[in-house]
């Protein structure tokens, strides 16, 4: 009797199981079908347009609508500068005075509400340079746009309070110092790349990485912004590639043979979109680590690695030495119509390693 009951009790289960099986299989098939057949074109569309990545990436590639502006007509048969090269062989603009119209560029970037981050490292005694750097930046650097100063220092208490304009803010990031100044310089690559991931990707559209022992003397604006830019070293803009102080030992990751090289870029001023700066700093940091493991240090440290990277990954804009000058060492030649970002005199022996 009990057996009969048991089998009877099982029977309804048995009958239910078959339609349930069907339902489950149908459900699975529907799931897959939806996955395959859902209208994917909008996603593809945005991917093709390159705007599928994190929203911030598409800045700079957008074509924005400008309001009516009045400015002199560009003349096709009259080059803006006859004395210098303004376009690299890979069609990246070289930024010199008179090649650009600030008003047009300002409007293009304002319409996209671009936020520019600038990283500066004030380690140990280098904090003394911060005040002049920040004050002059307030006057000349990206005026009218949103700016985030990222001050990396091991002495946050010594960071001066400089009044900042509207839309501009300062973030002090405490980082450990290194004993040797060469290591301080090279660790910048590591720190910038890690902070790119942590913060910069979310907070800014463009990132500029600058040396702190400098000051702004003239306009440095949105004309420099693009996906990846480097600055010509003021000591080598006249030199031929064999004379560039590239790292020449083949054992180093930064090695560049004598018959290669476009320009010698300065490690003190480079930048671009956050993702490109991230790629650059990460690659340079990895190269530095590899060199260290092989017991070699590149002749000009992070600058050598930067030059290797920019040889393989051509920058989309190149800044002329107007954007990186030392008047005491190099004077003021006629070819430099403006000196925008210049070295502040310092006593190397006193300031380094302290």
């Amino acid at each position, binding site marked *: 009797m009990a057996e009969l009951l048991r089998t009877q009790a099982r029977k309804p289960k*048995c009958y239910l*199981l078959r339609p349930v*099986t069907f339902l*489950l*299989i149908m*459900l*699975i098939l529907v*799931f*897959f079908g939806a*996955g395959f057949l859902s209208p*994917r*074109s909008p996603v593809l*569309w945005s*991917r*093709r*347009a*390159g705007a599928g990545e994190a929203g911030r*990436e598409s800045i700079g590639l957008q*074509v*924005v609508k*400008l*309001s*009516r502006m*009045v400015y002199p*007509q*560009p003349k*096709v*048969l*009259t*080059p803006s500068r*006859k*004395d*210098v*090269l*303004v*376009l*690299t*062989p*890979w*069609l*990246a*603009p070289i930024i010199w005075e008179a*090649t*650009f*119209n600030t008003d*047009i560029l300002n409007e*293009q970037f304002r319409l996209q509400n671009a936020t520019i981050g600038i990283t500066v490292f004030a380690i140990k005694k280098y904090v003394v340079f911060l005040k002049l750097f920040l004050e002059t930046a307030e006057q000349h650097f990206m005026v009218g746009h949103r700016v985030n100063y990222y001050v990396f220092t091991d002495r946050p208490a010594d960071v001066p309070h400089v009044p900042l304009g509207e839309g501009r803010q300062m973030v002090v990031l405490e980082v450990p110092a290194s004993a040797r100044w060469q290591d301080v310089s090279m660790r910048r690559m590591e720190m910038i790349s890690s902070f790119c991931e942590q913060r910069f990707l979310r907070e800014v559209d463009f990132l500029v990485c600058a040396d702190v022992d400098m000051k702004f003397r003239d306009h440095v604006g949105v004309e420099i912004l693009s996906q990846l830019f480097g600055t010509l070293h003021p000591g080598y803009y*006249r030199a*031929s590639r064999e004379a560039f102080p590239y790292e020449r030992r083949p054992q180093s990751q930064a090695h560049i043979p004598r018959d*290669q*090289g*476009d*320009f010698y870029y300065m490690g003190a001023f480079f930048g671009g*979109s956050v*993702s490109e700066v991230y790629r650059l700093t990460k690659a340079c940091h990895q190269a530095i680590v590899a060199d260290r493991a092989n017991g070699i240090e590149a002749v000009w440290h992070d600058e050598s690695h930067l030059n290797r990277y920019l*040889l*393989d990954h051509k*920058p*989309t804009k190149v800044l002329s030495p107007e954007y990186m000058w030392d008047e005491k060492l190099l004077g003021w030649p006629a*070819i430099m119509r403006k000196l925008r970002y210049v070295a502040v005199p310092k006593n190397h022996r006193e300031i380094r390693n302290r």
Partner: protein
Amino acid sequence: MRRHRLAIGLGVCLLVGTVLCTLWVYVEDWLPVSYVPYYLPCPEILSRYPQPKLLEQRPTELLTLTPWLAPIVSEGTFNAELLQHIYQPLNLTIGLTVFAVGKYTHFVQHFLESAELFFMHGYRVCYYVFTDDPTAIPQVPLGPGRRLGIIPIQRHSRWEEISTRRMEIISQHIAKRAHREVDYLFCVDVDMVFRNPWGPETLGDLVAAIHPGYYAVPRQQFPYERRHVSTAFVADGEGDFYYGGAVFGGRVANVYEFTRGCHMAILADKANGIMAAWQEESHLNRRFISHKPSKVLSPEYLWDDRKRQPPSLKLIRFSTLDKDTSWLRS
């Protein structure tokens, strides 16, 4: 026991199915898609090329950079081999649209033959030929990785109508088809021929070409639409260059926005019973003033063979077919 096993089996299937679906949603984003990186990667093993000379008198007498820092491309401003090394690995597909309506189908043969010789050699190319008579389009042998799409369109009685409809047709075609097939798209006139290489130096987000008839002329003399009522109106003190309607292009999404914008402006004019002085070229020029191109092609890329070639233009690449000389002879 068997039923228990069956139930468990089905439960596992359902679980696996859900997991696979969720995975698929994520994996989708990782699937290789034609991605054009922002920097220009340059492979290490690169053929040697001369160092760029920063302080030398430049070989070209043309302006090479617009005030908004868009390059103006002409012979001597770029190293073709270097650009080829940079762009080739990106596996790009370039589209080219032409309109061959009515008797203009006669031009297709020479156009395609010259394009096969000179247009984006070594890249994947999609020609899109819009025509009212698909049978009149000849079979031109195409190189590997290059194909032809013939799209039938409606013919209109007035040639101005045909001309202005192009913006609408291009934007619809992009939305329907081209956005899936190409990375960059160029829209050109069919009664022209390629005479010299047209390569990746022309690729950019939004590309315009300077009209050969007006590159040496002050902006007050540009044949802009000057009637206030038109949406293509350009005031006296406005304008950079006079761009030719026969060549424009860029990234496919930007070309879509551009052609759509022009089409809307044309429609607005139509509603007001007005047609711009140079049809869609006027609207194109209006739009390029407020939406500046990221790259400008010198008149080498859009030339009129009836004009004498000035020494500042070193290499004519794309020009009008001289309709007087008999091509049948050549």
